[in-house]
Structures are given as C-alpha cells and as structure tokens.
C-alpha cells in the first residue's frame, strides 16, 4: 500500500494535469450591475433572462459540496443585486462551502453588514480602483469611491473585520500602493491586488491602462517584500523577474480553477468568458461534475503545454508563459509570450497582430446606453 515519493509526480505537474475538483472556482451570480466599470471582465450591466434560478443555484452548491470544493469566489455583475443572494449564501455556508464575494459596496447597508458579521465562512472583497475618488471614479463610476467608503464604515461598525479591499492595478493607481495599504491597515482590512486583463470591456481600455515595464518592475519589488498582500496568484508572470511571488505561479485555467457564469455556462477561468473557452453548462446532463471531469476543453487544457516561442527563455519555468486570457484577447498565440512579458518578448508578437487576430467578443451584457467614460490623462 505504500506510495513512495518517486511514484508521485511533482505537485505542480499534478496540478497542471488537473484535479478531480477545482481548488476554488468563481461563480458570477448575475450579469446585472448598478455600475459600468470600464474594465469589467464580464462586460456586465444587464441581467440575462436565462440566469440560474434559486433552485438551480442550490443544486450547483450541492454539487460543489459533494466535490469538496472548500470555497467559492462569488461575483457578477453585482451579486447583491440578486434578491436571493442571502438565501444562496446561507445555503452554501450550511453545506460547508465557504464564500468570498466581491461587491462594489453600494448595497452593503447597515443591516446587511450586521447580517454578514454574524455569519461564519464569509469573506468580502470591496472593489476599489483608486485611493481617492479622483482616481477611482473615472474607472468605476461617479460616486463609487464614496460608496465603498460607506460600505467600509458599515462593516467596521458591524464588527466585520478582515474584509478585503480589492484593487485592479492600473497605470493610474500603481503609484498609490502605499496609500491602499495604509487604508487597509487603518480599517483592519486586507489589501488584495489583481491584474488588469484585456477581457470583457477590459479589452477596450487595456492599452490605455496597462502598466509600463518600469511599473511592472516596481510592482514586483513592492509585492516581493510584502508576502501578506493577497493577489489571487494574479501576477505570476512577474515571477520571471526573480524569486517567485507567493502562490502556485501557474495558469490554473481548467486545471485547478474555472468560472460558472450567471446562466450556468462553465468557462476555463474568470478571464476568458468567450465561446472558445466554454466547456459546458451546469444544466447539462451530469451537471458541473461532468463538465469539470469530462469536457473536451478541460481535458485539452490539462495536457502538457507547448512553450512555443518561450521555449528558449530561461525564465519559462518561472512564469510558464504567463496568462492565457491576456494572450488570447490581445491576439497573441496561446503558445506565445504574455503581452506583458517582463522582458518585452511579446513586443514583436504584438506588433505583428492584425485586426483579424483579435477575437470578437461572444458575450456582452453591457447596458445599451453605456457611455464610454473618458479617462484621465495618462501620468
């Protein structure tokens, strides 16, 4: 019965070949949102009429319980817009599936804050993309900074400690990292930084908001001395700069993570809501379990990857070629360098991208009257 170390492949290799259940998964509860953030990964705005019902949501939670998924990242759209949000939340907790949910804070009033403070296994991520309204509001909408600060006050007053302030790092706010950390510290909160991706509406503003090479190096140096900052493994492409950042440092798409969207479609990761990365639907026969274990797409993603153009780079083992979604939506081959390769190895590939290489979005729930926000001048 003994299993010696030599018969068990290295952990990372096993993770890349997929697990029987995701380590965690993201579940977008609705495409409805009261905001219209310029970089929204899921192009949210309007509810989809085909969204999962409460009963279907509970059935998904039952499956996640049976598959021993320990926690889920819940988002949207704005999850608090769903009237059955607390019903689904409490059901998940009762089934031992922890919930981390992302919110823009508008609907997080005193009553909801008190209710959340009384629950176990709930984490809250408040989205904030500037340390002041002048930086945040052009990205997330007029009044959205004040709304987050109000939600923070409500949580503080309710005694909910340790919530997360979640920031998408852009060239507009990368100079405010210390200010974000101070804001978190002053409120007993934790800071979480994630990467801007050219997904959803993010594609429209990616070139305008993405970090410069020098800013990427600054961010890496900032993070490497602050292992307590949460990143959701977002910046593993920066690990090519030296010591690896905390985390698994691999692309987990379809291997250890995936996304369930509001209509039950299962995508390889939260950043590739596109038909090319659609593995199935939780309403299909066999449910989510079948999609996770048997779908052709996920089976394919669990094969050894082709390093392609990165094969000759000494840092390939550190960054694994970077983020699949970032490559896909910028028109770079999947077996190519990340568009934000820290050595600039994608510059040539990017220069050769033609309009026909850029994928056409297959999902858009933006409000029809959405007005494109004019962003501040690039500093």
């Amino acid at each position, binding site marked *: 019965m003994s*299993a010696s*170390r030599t018969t*068990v492949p290295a*952990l990372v290799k*096993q993770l890349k070949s997929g697990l029987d*259940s995701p*380590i965690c998964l993201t579940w977008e509860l609705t495409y409805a949102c009261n905001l219209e953030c310029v970089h929204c990964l899921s192009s949210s705005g309007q509810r989809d009429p085909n969204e999962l019902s409460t009963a279907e949501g509970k059935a998904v939670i039952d499956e996640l319980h049976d598959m021993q998924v*320990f926690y889920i990242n819940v988002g949207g759209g704005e999850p608090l817009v769903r009237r059955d949000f607390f019903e689904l939340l409490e059901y998940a907790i009762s089934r031992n599936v*922890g919930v981390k949910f992302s919110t823009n804070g508008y609907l997080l009033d005193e009553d909801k804050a008190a209710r959340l403070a009384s629950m176990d296994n709930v984490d809250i991520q408040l989205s904030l993309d500037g340390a002041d309204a002048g930086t945040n509001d052009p990205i997330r909408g007029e009044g959205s900074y004040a709304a987050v600060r109000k939600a923070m006050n409500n949580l503080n007053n309710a005694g909910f400690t340790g919530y997360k302030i979640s920031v998408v790092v852009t060239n507009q706010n990368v100079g405010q990292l210390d200010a974000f950390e101070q804001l978190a510290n002053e409120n007993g909160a934790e800071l979480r930084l994630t990467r801007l991706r050219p997904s959803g509406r993010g594609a429209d503003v990616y070139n305008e908001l993405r970090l410069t090479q020098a800013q990427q190096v600054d961010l890496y140096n900032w993070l490497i001395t602050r292992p307590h900052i949460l990143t959701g493994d977002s910046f593993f492409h920066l690990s090519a700069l030296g010591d690896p950042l905390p985390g698994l440092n691999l692309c987990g798409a379809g291997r250890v993570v995936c996304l369930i969207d509001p209509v039950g479609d299962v995508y390889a990761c939260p950043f590739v809501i596109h038909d090319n990365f659609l593995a199935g639907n939780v309403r299909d026969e066999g449910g989510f379990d079948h999609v996770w274990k048997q779908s052709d797409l996920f089976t394919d993603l669990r094969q050894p990857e082709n390093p392609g153009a990165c094969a000759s780079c000494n840092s390939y083992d550190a960054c694994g070629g970077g983020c699949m979604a970032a490559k896909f939506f910028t028109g770079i081959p999947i077996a190519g360098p990340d568009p934000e390769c820290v050595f600039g190895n994608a510059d040539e590939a990017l220069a050769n991208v033609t309009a026909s290489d850029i994928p056409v979005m297959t999902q858009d729930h933006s409000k029809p009257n959405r007005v494109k926000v004019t962003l501040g001048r690039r500093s």
Partner: protein
Amino acid sequence: MTLSSQVGLRPEPFGALAYHFDTRRLVFLKSPGLVALVESLSQFASADEAIAAADAAHTPSSYQSALTSLEESGVVCVR
C-alpha cells in the same frame, strides 16, 4: 495530536488538499503517506507513536518536520 476540527481534507492523487475554515488557508499534503499519518493521529497517544506505525515511505524525521509545519498552519493541533 489530531486533525483540527476546522480543517477539511480532500484526497488528491498527490496526497490531499487541506483547507482551514478559520484561517482560510489552503495547505498541500504532498504525499499519501503523510495523509495517512495525519488521519491516524487521533488513534495514537502521541505523534511519535503514530509516526512509528506510519508507512515507511518517509523517514521518521521527515514525518516529524511535516507535522511541525502542519501544526504551525493549524492543520493539526494538540488534543
């Protein structure tokens, strides 16, 4: 010593994934031998006895250091 009541253990080909519901920490138990040891802890009076009875895939000292690190992350705790 025993597996913490706040920890969920999910079997995986490499060993197991442990999740601490209080600290929200994920920990990888990187060998089936270590998983079996952790699961057997509550049947023994001491960690040393559990290690003595454990699968010989690893040396007692490597089991000991693995348990120390699992205790630091709260996966196992003193009864």
